């Protein structure tokens, strides 16, 4: 059995206390162990600074006055902290409108992916029929198709369906490219629930929908959380699809609004505004990941993640 499946089978992701060869509890700590632990802490802390500093620095920068953002960093920067970039971005560029667009698309994508993937996962796990394996393989194979390579046919097709320059159309597009992962995760979630539970409900005369909503739903919440989290984050951070399918500025999602700040403005780019907008885009990702990382890691272990 491979290592990934081994860990996956153990359940809810990587616990902070997993025991490996390097960290078995020993009855007594030797000086060598203590030195190793000190080295580990030092290396970890140093690497954490390298990985977190650019993000923390961006937050600090976004609170500097616009004139200082375009000057070399100096100690004086921190004595003039202001929210001017944020208020300016909200008042002059109506950025909250773009935040709302992004939120609508991301929430819509998350909800739609969850519903469709749950139904399909239930079907594949418990209502297999002749040919269902083939359909499952077909859905999974679409993981191999990069949407970046289908922009032209998708644009023409969605244009004819009235789905370009349309937030619903964008959410449908995002949902589809999250489905292979979602269906895979939900099918595995249903397969982990003992079949007897489903059978008992069926024998008692419960319809499939009732079995799903009354008996199985509490048990599949972790799978749904994983699916929604991936769909939401994909939608919130996606760039090239939105760039292709949206043309009206009032429909722009947050990344497109930021691009507009970069290229759309006449003359000098307002870097203070750009930094504030990027920080706004960053915040939901950080909060969602930290709060729900258990579910995120569950998804990583499925093995069908894309980069």
């Amino acid at each position: 059995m491979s290592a990934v499946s081994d860990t996956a089978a153990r359940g809810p992701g990587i616990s902070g206390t997993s025991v490996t060869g390097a960290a078995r509890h020993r009855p007594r700590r030797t000086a060598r162990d203590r030195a190793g632990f000190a080295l580990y802490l030092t290396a970890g802390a140093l690497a954490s600074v390298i990985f977190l500093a650019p993000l923390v620095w961006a937050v600090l920068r976004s609170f500097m006055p616009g004139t200082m953002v375009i000057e070399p960093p100096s100690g004086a920067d921190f004595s003039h902290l202001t929210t001017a970039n944020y208020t300016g971005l909200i008042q002059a560029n109506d950025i909250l409108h773009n935040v709302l667009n992004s939120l609508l698309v991301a929430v819509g994508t998350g909800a739609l992916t969850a519903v469709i993937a749950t139904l399909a996962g239930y079907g594949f796990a418990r209502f297999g029929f002749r040919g269902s394996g083939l359909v499952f393989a077909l859905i999974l194979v679409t993981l191999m198709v990069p949407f970046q390579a289908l922009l032209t046919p998708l644009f023409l097709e969605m244009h004819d369906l009235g789905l370009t320059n349309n937030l619903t159309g964008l959410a449908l597009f995002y949902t589809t490219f999250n489905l292979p992962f979602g269906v895979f995760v939900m099918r595995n979630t249903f397969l982990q629930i003992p079949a007897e539970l489903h059978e008992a409900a069926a024998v008692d005369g419960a319809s499939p929908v009732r079995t799903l909503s009354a008996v199985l739903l509490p048990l599949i919440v972790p799978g749904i959380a994983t699916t929604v989290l991936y769909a939401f984050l994909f939608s919130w951070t996606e760039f090239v699809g939105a760039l292709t399918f949206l043309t009206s500025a009032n429909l722009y999602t947050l990344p497109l609004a930021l691009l507009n700040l970069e290229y759309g403005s006449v003359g000098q780019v307002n870097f203070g505004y750009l930094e504030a907008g990027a920080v706004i885009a960053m915040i939901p990702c950080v909060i969602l990941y930290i709060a729900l990382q258990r579910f995120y890691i569950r998804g990583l272990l499925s093995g069908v993640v894309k980069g």
Partner: protein
Amino acid sequence: MTTPNRVLSRRVPLIGHATGQPRDGGRNGTIRWSSLKARQTRTGIALIAPAFAMVAIFVLFPLGFAVYISLTNWPLIGSYHFIGAQNYTELIHDPQFIHSVLFTLLYTAIVTGPIFIVGYAMAVLVRSGRFGSVFFRTAFFLPFIVGLATESFMALLELQPDSGAADFLLAKLHLASIHTAWTVSYGLSLTAICVFVTWFASGLTMMLLMAGMQGIPAELYEAANVDGATWWQKEIRITIPLLRRNIALALIISVIGSFLAFNQFYILTEGGPGTSTQPVVMWIYEEAFVQYHLGYATAGAITLVVVTGIISAVQFYLLRDERDQKKAVRR
């Protein structure tokens, strides 16, 4: 059959199907096997239909449509003609397309190694589960979570001459002039983007490798300790061989991600100077939606589908292999 009517199907042939009772058998408390089976199939199809319809409409149809478009001289508006493989023969003689392919390959070749090495080192650091490892893991992974587009806008500011943090730090270390403009020359922007992407993507490699490392039985390391193996020997002789499949998956995901690079180049260099830092996806985007050569752009896209498809097929092969092994273990 592992389906819900397993319990029922055992006695059903005696009552319903085999004795050929009328269709209303179910209402009298007996259940026909064939009707149950049919209902099972109907329910299955109904549950799967929405997902299949979405995939058919937004992936399978566009895929076939793409092949068709690529054989025409499709403009954005107006009529088109079927021109056979002409787009493809033009592609292989188009210096700009060739350049974008070679540039993408170069970029992939440069970033794959650093992403893997940094990701591996971080996985070694956090796999132990010691005090602080969850914090470290979160810190290393956050750049990946925030996303390349958002971070490219942040990087744009920090790569500016005179005012950016990159020049500020490098000037303090006497490694570069404070006036270095990182995003307007080919070599500098490629260097900056590779460092930036390594920072962004190595967290994902770390996660994929860490999962595998934690699945390796501790007994193997204990046995090696008894034999007096050094850390390095254990890593080379135990961890890496047992991690082969995770390493392959992490590399494949990383390489496909690099092949599909777009955000960081579009936001930081816009493909410039000229089209020197234009990766394949940007070539497709520009050709289709700026030049309006939809047929020609789609021919380029098809080549991308084929290349990434072949690489992903290896990923699928590895996953399938894993499932078969699981089955073997269960037996």
